[in-house]
């Protein structure tokens, strides 16, 4: 039995790693280039991308911080806003449910279209480009992160275990008490479900909003600028950084989730 468990771990970790190593080797030995019909300039070797990142990391740091501020700022604001929309939906149940059926539709609105309009909205906010542009980008990401949180929060607040509302009513507890003792704790796992969607999308939102921003800064903007300038290795380095940011934030989320929901998992 024990050896079976060990073999299981070996294949679960070993096979994907092996696959990754094969792809890496194909890339490094330029087989991948032949396959895609491209060259080393457009698709640089992994070692070259790696050395660009390690050589220029200090100069890349302000770009990364800028994107991180936008992504996290939008994530936090969007999640809070979304949760409050979910609460409003749960309070006014009949109106809320129909309203929240419209919310997923907002995901269908192209973000690209939003970004330039929001730039116009914030134009008079401040004379400083950096401030108004950052605000515009954060608003874009906020809108991006609101929808999934509001739908999930609504579900978490309303989909309580059967009869638990009756149980609370039998204690003669007020609506407010029921909200804090029953609905709020019940919605916690749903909040993490929403974050699993919005953490990756806040990075995407930040990157894309930078394409249209007034201020020329950020990982996403660097991807675009460097491609326009024909500096593909640098562009790839920023793509790698964007991917690493997404993966890192997701992993942090999973760790936090496993700690917070430790005792909720059914055995």
């Amino acid at each position, binding site marked *: 039995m024990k050896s079976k468990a060990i073999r299981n771990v070996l294949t679960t970790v070993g096979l994907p790693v092996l696959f990754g190593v094969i792809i890496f080797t194909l890339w490094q030995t330029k087989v991948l280039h032949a396959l895609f019909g491209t060259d080393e300039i*457009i698709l640089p070797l992994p070692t070259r991308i790696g050395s660009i990142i390690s050589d220029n990391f200090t100069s890349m740091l302000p770009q990364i911080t800028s994107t991180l501020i936008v992504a996290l700022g939008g994530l936090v604001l969007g999640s809070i806003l979304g949760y409050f929309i979910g609460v409003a939906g749960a309070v006014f149940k009949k109106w809320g*449910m129909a309203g929240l059926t419209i919310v997923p539709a907002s995901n269908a609105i192209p973000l690209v279209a939003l970004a330039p309009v929001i730039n116009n909205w914030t134009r008079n906010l401040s004379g400083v480009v950096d401030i108004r542009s950052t605000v515009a980008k954060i608003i874009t990401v906020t809108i991006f992160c609101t929808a999934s949180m509001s739908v999930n929060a609504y579900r978490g607040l309303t989909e309580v275990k059967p009869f638990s509302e009756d149980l609370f009513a039998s204690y003669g507890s007020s609506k407010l008490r029921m909200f804090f003792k029953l609905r709020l704790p019940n919605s916690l796992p749903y909040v993490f479900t929403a974050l699993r969607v919005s953490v990756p999308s806040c990075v995407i939102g930040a990157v894309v909003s930078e394409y249209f921003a007034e201020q020329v800064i950020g990982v996403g903007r660097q991807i675009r600028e460097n491609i326009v300038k024909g500096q593909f290795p640098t562009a790839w380095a920023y793509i790698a950084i964007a991917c690493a940011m997404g993966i890192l934030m997701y992993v942090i989320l999973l760790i936090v989730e496993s700690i917070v929901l430790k005792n909720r998992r059914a055995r």
Partner: protein
Amino acid sequence: MLNKIKSSKGIVTAVWVLGLMVIWEICAFIVGATQRTPINVLPHLYQIFGSFFDPKPITGSGDTIATLVFSSAAETLSRALIGFVIGMLLGYALALFMNLSHIVEKIAFPYLMIIQMIPILGMAPIVLSITGDISSARIVIAAILTFYPVSTNTLAGFKSVGRERHELMKSYGANKFQLYIKMLIPSAMSYFFTGLKISAPMAITASILVDTLQGGNGLGCMLSQSLKGSMTRFVFWDIVIFSAVIGVLSFYLMGVIERAISPSKRKAKKLNNGKD
């Protein structure tokens, strides 16, 4: 009774849409009173709709806004559709292989998770320079974005088939092919469509984004040209509204197709309506 709830739900939705329109109009009114160029910030809805049906040509070739939007939409959406179909087929195939083979599942699963975490849209410019052609870039990005939700949802559908259902098929001595055709694939159908509902609007958004990166005839190209001021700003607003509507419609279209191919859903619904 149920009928009543249903129709009242329709009314509630309608009230919501109307409410949002009223909020838009109030904001537009404030913007109109305070801003120098309200059309750049928030024009009135009637202005936007009016401009769409304005018969006056806005380009040298005699296009009105409506014909311009439709022709660029055909350009962009046809590529989005091709990418969507390719991504759907690949995603479904991967889910099938992952369910058939433990080795494939173990290799692919972590990478499927990673795809979800990386900002694919951020890679649009590089995809564009690898393919070198905007149409192929649209197709590739739409396909990648469709691939992930279809694959994970369909796989979840296969996995959701309970032990007793497998035992039932085993007790009949069913082979692999029969197991898939008669049990697993139909069981996973609603999961598959959940994936499609997520990815259809995403494929459209992605194609429009790719458009904005380079000149051409797509929706996104018109959008950026209008922003740059080379044609009236109403083109921009019309495209925003148009793409939102198309995105929402693509979501509902998936539901319509699902109901069309699964008579049990349709019939159960009809019976419920008749009963109450």
